[in-house]
């Protein structure tokens, strides 16, 4: 029998959080595109989901993502006044605020759920938000509180 070749890892394996981002089609999604075509570097931990408007994001999406094991969730929309649908992002601002307060109240780390305004021209802001978010989530470890246990 052959001995398995010894593998030595020089770099300590670190936890890679999985982050779900809900990006509005008109601004944030285009912003992430800009980051891509400009060859900006940002962590590959992001699962982008394009939605038509940040105002259309139901709190159920958020809970469902946590249920399926998201370590962090970012909701991103157009800056106030820039909404393609005039006022969708204002509705989102209220709704997301309430959801943030509620999940914090039940004991989920508030850092895990964020919201940002990213315009189509802000590729650099997108990479910064994502990089910071990943670095903030990493020390928290995997999100196991709201993840469904299918064992």
């Amino acid at each position, binding site marked *: 029998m052959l001995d398995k070749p010894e593998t030595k890892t020089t770099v300590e394996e670190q936890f890679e959080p999985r982050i779900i981002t809900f990006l509005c089609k008109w601004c944030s999604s285009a912003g992430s595109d800009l980051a891509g075509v400009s060859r900006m570097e940002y962590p590959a931990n992001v699962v982008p989901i394009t939605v038509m408007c940040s105002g259309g994001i139901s709190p*159920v999406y958020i809970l*469902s993502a*946590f249920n399926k094991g998201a370590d962090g969730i970012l909701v991103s929309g157009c800056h106030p006044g820039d909404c393609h649908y005039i006022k969708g992002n*204002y509705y989102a601002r*209220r709704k997301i*605020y*309430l959801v943030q307060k*509620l999940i914090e109240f*039940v004991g989920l780390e508030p850092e895990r759920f964020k919201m940002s305004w990213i315009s189509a021209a802000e590729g650099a802001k997108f990479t910064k*938000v994502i990089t910071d978010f990943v670095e903030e989530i990493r020390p928290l470890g995997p999100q196991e509180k709201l993840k469904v246990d299918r064992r």
Partner: protein
Amino acid sequence: MIDIKDLRKQARELLDNEDVKYVLGFQKGTATFMSTPAFITEAADTENLVWDPTCVHNLALYLTEERKMRVARKETEGKPVGIVAKGCDSRAIVVLLQENYFKRQDVHIIGVSCEGTGVLDENKLNRLLKGKAPLNAEFDGVGHFLVATKDGDVKIPANEILADRCLECRAPYPAEHDTVYGEKVDGGRLDPFHSLEALEASAVGDKWDFWKEQMDKCLRCYACRSVCPMCYCEECVVDSITFMVTPDTLPGQKANRIKWIERSNNTSENFGYHLVRAIHLAGRCIDCGECQRVCPVDIPVRLLNKKLEKEAFEMFDYEPGTDSEAPSLVSSFLDEDPNDHIL
């Protein structure tokens, strides 16, 4: 003090003149000394009406049931329903009017003021009496209840047996009414958000431990949903009826029948149910505390709704159940809404 005779007379007049279809009120309970809801159709039965601190139910629930029955019978016109409404019931009616669930002329509100007391919490009472069955409870007008039991009267401070929601009530006087009985009073005995203080101050981990223990108890009996006057949706996100997955659902169809929240009873799904319910009630919950009262496993459901009520009040200056013309909390916004939570 409200003279029950006035209330009965008013109900009798409404029925005699055929102004209302029936009167929703409270009657003496048969199982315990707590009152039960009464549906009074005959003028003679108005003698059964009672009004005392055991009238805990939120009768606005039956207005939504009435509306559903009307829709099922395809009635467009009908006589209004008379309802005996406390402060919280009246707020519930205002929210239902605000949502255009029924019209103002569909309901005749006989307001009753709680006059600085409120209703009793049966759990608290049973705990204090240590198993002795209460026969009657009377407020002495200052700060105590005289609870009659078989072994004589017990004097209990009001703050110890009143329901939490009554202690924290901000509007014990029914603002929306056709006729009203009792004195106009403001505010409860405690700070409106008193029950949240301890939990809000605790650490993230402690909050989680507390809620996990509570949510793991949940049986998913949906009693909280059934009793809630605001949970009137024909179909609930947690148990879809139209798009049910049955043994003969084809795999392709299954993929399209998204289930946001499963029925299975585990921590994550229970949290999902309760959090979604809390969000649905944001800016609509008028804190009648019925969800918590009916919970068979004593989950403090009310706290979740209270938390959102607090946030709505402090950040958006929104108080549910005060104005039937105002837009609802999540269907409106202000330019000066908080922006600090956004990167």
